[in-house]
């Protein structure tokens, strides 16, 4: 099993989620995060003086997937989260030793 962590733009979350479930991926976990990278944040004003806000709000989408559907998931996210502008985000892939469904105790791929 693999764990896919995608950092994407907030307003893309809805699309990515729909695309994934359309592809039969019915579980994921979302986290609000702040990103720092090439995309350079913005300036805000405070009583006539400006200051830079370097962190950009993003969302992290975590999906545990069986190895065979990894590529499908990556492609789907790529396609739906892309705008071509700097700041589209990243996808990180890592190994999962095991997954357990708390409700049933099932483990491994059927727990996903």
């Amino acid at each position, binding site marked *: 099993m693999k764990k896919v962590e995608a950092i994407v733009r907030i307003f893309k979350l809805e699309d990515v989620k729909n695309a994934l479930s359309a592809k039969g991926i019915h579980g994921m976990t979302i986290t609000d995060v702040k990103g720092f990278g090439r995309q350079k944040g913005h300036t*805000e*004003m*405070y*009583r*006539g*003086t*400006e*200051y830079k*806000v370097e962190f950009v709000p993003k969302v992290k989408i975590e999906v545990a997937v069986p190895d065979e559907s990894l590529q499908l998931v990556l492609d789907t996210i790529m396609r739906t989260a892309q705008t071509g502008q700097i700041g589209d985000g990243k996808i990180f892939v890592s190994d999962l030793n095991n997954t357990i469904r708390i409700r049933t105790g099932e483990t491994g791929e059927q727990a996903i």
Partner: protein
Amino acid sequence: MSGKRLLAAAVCAWAILGLTSHAARAQDEPKPAAAPADVEAAPADEGPKLDRGNNAWMLTSSALVLMMTAPGLAMFYGGLVRKKNVLGVIMQCFFLMGLMTVIWGLWGYSLSFGGTKPWIGNADYLFMNGVQSEWKDGAPYVPMYPTGIPMLTHMVFQGMFFIITPALIVGAFAERMKFSTMVVFMILWGTFVYCPIAHWVWGGGILAYGTENAKEYGMGGALDFAGGTVVHISSGVSALVCALLIGKRLGYGTEPMPPHNLTYTAVGAALLWVGWFGFNAGSALAADGVAASAFVATHFSAAAGALTWAGLEWVIRRKPTVLGAASGAVAGLVCITPASGYVTPMPALILGVAAGVFCYFACTSLKSAFGYDDSLDAFGVHGIGGTVGALLTGVFATRAVQDLNGGDPLGLYEGGTLLKGQIVATIATWILAAAVTFVILKVLDLTMGLRVATQDELQGLDLTQHGEEGYIFM
């Protein structure tokens, strides 16, 4: 640095003023301040009779002015600090509502409005004697104020000013001051800064327009309808001294300290605007034409201030901000305060514009030039705005609104000579506020300490001073 010099100057000036005063005390008591414009004739033996319309408006105004401190100022200031300090600021405002009220009832009102000695009030009204109702020759007797309102109404209305004035200073040392020290500071500040100045200007003292005292020491005295000197200069200048003596917040200048909740700040500003009608129009102490005129002047100046500040940002930074509009409105309200009962609507617009311009640059250029950390710009808005307002009152005050000079003109604009008295009052207020605040803080610094521990400042005042968190959203 610059702060130090300024204070030195202040102290000397004060010393001098002090001496003259002693000499002066030899003089015999000046007679009472002229009663407000609309005193109603009343049989000498029973004093003015109750005017229910005036009393209705004054009770309403008193409620409005309390609302200015909380939720008004508490939300305005609370929104501007970082999340970890929001309760710290709100607590200071709220606690002061309790603290200053008790002081006012016990001795504050008497020191401010008792008798008409030149420098300070007397003991006539201690513990509300002579203010509260009494059982007198077989019936309840209600001491009345000349405008046909019970003295209790006058006392409580003025008491609301005694709450918000110190609360304004809170903006200067927000996010770092020890709560215990703040409490002691405010007791002393209220007693030794507010009460004398209130007496000078409103209690028939050395600056009360047209009184013997003023002729004696105050070059004829000044007009301060609702507190340009008593409230805004006194708190704003003291705020500057606080900011200089307590020092900058950790990380000030290096890391951004953005307002954590601008929606609160905007709501607070709107509540201040609404409450200010009680503050200014209420200062007519009657529901008459002067009150209506003051109400309009207040509204127009706030409007002009909001447009001016936001407009300047729009031109200079290419974006008008909510904080800018809110700050401008407050600046306009501060600036019109001393003038509100003396000027017509169009000059009120001018005062609003002036407030927007001067306070904008005070909060940006001036502050960064000197580098002090007046956290929420208490000096930039109230000190500067109050000063501009006090002086422009000397320019635009007109007999067309109130004839206070036997038919002769008042402000410079209509050919009067009021301005010099306004200048004297402004300087005297700056000096008293700066000097006494400086002394009080120095003493407290050596005894209790002004500032929370570094660890506590990092963790925030909410948890370390009050054991609470503002928001628990999990």
